[in-house]
């Protein structure tokens, strides 16, 4: 592990990551929710209008009247297809059959009466995951550093990996983490501090 790696917003270790694949190719991004560019929910007060109406340009297309060859990449037009915005926004397209349905792991927190389950696939990286955990269990995590673990709070997020070992969240590249994480535990107190200082 490079000693220069620090915990920033995104533990991007792509540069040194070992993975199968041609150099220069990138894994396809997990599909974002389908929100067409030009959808503007005009019922909530927005800070300024966000979407220009593209219908003027489309009108000029229609004016020709001839059978039109479609341009290669079409801009989304306001209000087309005619689906109400709540329906467009409240639904995310399913991944294709080939993709697994999601990586659900149980998360326990010391002192909490029951466990939670989260889908690791929903997060793009450690920062999002940790933020979600903070929101879910109402605590703060503190700054990660490779040397000292999580400073600035009593809690440390840990996980059990495939080998049955308990690891500190954040040490390995994100993709390796989500493929090896079986469950998580948010440790508190002296146990947590002990883990950090052993790094």
């Amino acid at each position, binding site marked *: 592990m490079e000693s220069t790696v620090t915990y920033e917003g995104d533990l991007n270790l792509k540069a040194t990551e070992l993975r199968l694949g041609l150099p220069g190719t990138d894994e396809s991004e997990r599909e974002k929710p*389908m929100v067409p560019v030009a959808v503007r929910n005009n019922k909530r007060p927005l800070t300024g209008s966000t979407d220009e109406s593209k219908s003027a340009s489309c009108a000029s297309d*229609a004016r020709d009247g001839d059978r039109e060859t479609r341009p290669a990449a079409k801009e989304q037009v306001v209000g087309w297809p005619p689906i109400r*915005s709540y*329906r467009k926004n409240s639904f995310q397209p399913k991944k294709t059959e080939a993709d697994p349905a999601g990586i659900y792991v149980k998360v326990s927190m010391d002192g909490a009466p029951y466990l*939670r389950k989260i889908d690791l696939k929903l997060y793009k990286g450690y920062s999002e995951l940790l933020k979600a955990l903070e929101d879910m269990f109402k605590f703060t995590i503190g700054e990660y550093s490779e040397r000292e673990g999580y400073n600035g709070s009593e809690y440390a997020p840990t996980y059990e990996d495939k080998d049955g070992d308990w690891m500190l969240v954040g040490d390995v590249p994100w993709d390796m983490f989500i493929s090896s994480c079986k469950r998580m535990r948010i440790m508190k107190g002296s146990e947590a501090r002990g883990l950090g200082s052993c790094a």
Partner: protein
Amino acid sequence: MSEDEDRTVDLDGVSGGGAGFNHEASSSKTSCCPSPSPDRVLEIVLENVLLFLTSRRDRSAVSLVCKSWYRAEALTRSELFIGNCYAVSPRRAIERFQKVRSLVLKGMPRFADFSLVPPNWGAHFLPWVSAMATGYPWLEKVYLKRMSVTDDDLNLLAKSFPGFKELVLVCCEGFGTSGLAAVARECRQLRVLDLIDDEVMDDEVDWISCFPETGTCLESLVFDCVEFHVNFGALELLVARSPSLRRLKLNRHVPLGELLRLMVRAPRLTHLGTGSFSLSEHPAQEEQEAASLAAAFAACKSLICLSGFRDIVPDYLPTIHPVCAKLTSLNLSYANINAEQLKSVIYHCHKLQTLWVLDSVCDEGLQAVAATCKELHELRVFPMDAREDGQAFVSEVGLLAISEGCRKLRSILYFCQKMTNDAVVAMSQNCPELVVFRLCIMGRHRPDHVTGEPMDIGFGAIVMNCKKLTRLAVSGLLTDKAFSYIGKYGKLVRTLSVAFAGNTDMALRYVLEGCPKLLKLEIRDSPFGDTALLSGLHHYYNMRFLWMSSCKLSLGGCKEVARRMPQLVVELIREPEEEDIVDDVVEKLYMYRSLEGCRLDAPSFVTIL
């Protein structure tokens, strides 16, 4: 309430319309007269007869016979339908119809649903509720569609009508939990509170807790559009003390565990919206829940309408098996399920009349529907990927299968990426009962993907063969020919939606000159100009509205219409950022007949000619 059926049957399969409330004799003024005059006798007879007349078209005809009949009809009309809130003022309506118990009021044009109308355009409920507070103290029912409703409005409504029974808000916005709390608290006779596709603001008021503590008359509580949590504990208690509750539609924040608890308390439900239908937050209980669910459904012997499934875990879908055989309405349009998953339930649904699905079920799923649901009246297929060049899941194959299997089909809304004329023609021949045909080929100007031809023939066959057709929405590559067919054969068409279609003004002229029953016409992005607009002057007073956006209209043409038709309100709608009418091109035209002339509440971006 759909206007496309004579009996207003909505997704619930419940008949709305004129009936359903007390028919009280309104001839109270004669009670003190010992022997009424012969004329008055005739009037009394007429009034009592008219009490049974509920169709508003019949009532309209009655009111035109003579002055005496006009008066009698006005005194006995208890349900008032106003299709355009700006067509008549509250004062005028109240002056004419004095005994109204039920109001249906519609506001914004339908294209507002697709972000084509800027916010704050209008359609305010306030002037209506204010006027009715004094004019209709015995008001019982209010149904609003696409109106702007505030918490203050709801407060006023709640306090003004002691006998208030039903509030149905469809596609409305501007109100939140405070307004709902007022209604829950003050309307002690409330039977129906239905929020359908509204935008409800979260003021963090626990409105569910505001219903009367001793018990309620609630028959229907629909809040599946509410995008935030409601207090579940309070909801459970509410259901427990609402013995008349038959319709309950939960929002997506009610998970399976909570749904179960409610079903146990309300086994006599007829209509159930199942909330998220997804994993509980307590993983340990999942298996137990699945078993309990099947039992809970088995216990609901009266269920005929199911919806919800907002975040469905498909594995749980088969738990609804016990109710499938009796279901008449099933809404899976938020359920991302595939063909196999649909089949596991649909094969039991022999009585199904209304089905809404996502195209995730693919053509194969629709084939299963066609094989089983012989009583199907209404089908809606929504797209998972609502983009022009998105993924295609259903096609002409599914449409053809449905047409061959579901011969009693009356209404269809079908989103797809590709279609053929043959399939549409086949549907026109196989389904002669079609009243509503709405086909949305999501790619603009897309021809028949097999022949490369425009879709003219297909839509032409629909208007020609479906003799009962009243509502039509067209799409795909269409030339003027398609519109000539519509004008020639679409003699009963009342509502027409056009987008990205036609070549010249002739297309619009065919329609305006050929369709005598045309009531609502909405057009976008089609090359129709002033000549076409002016060809409809003979008909515009018979229409509720005309919407044209991104067409070829000019300021001059619109001014000409306004000049020649004084009782038409001609609105030009700009984007709110634009200061004033910049050039001669009219981007959005919305015009409608009105008895009141120019409205006084128009915002700055609307110019009324």
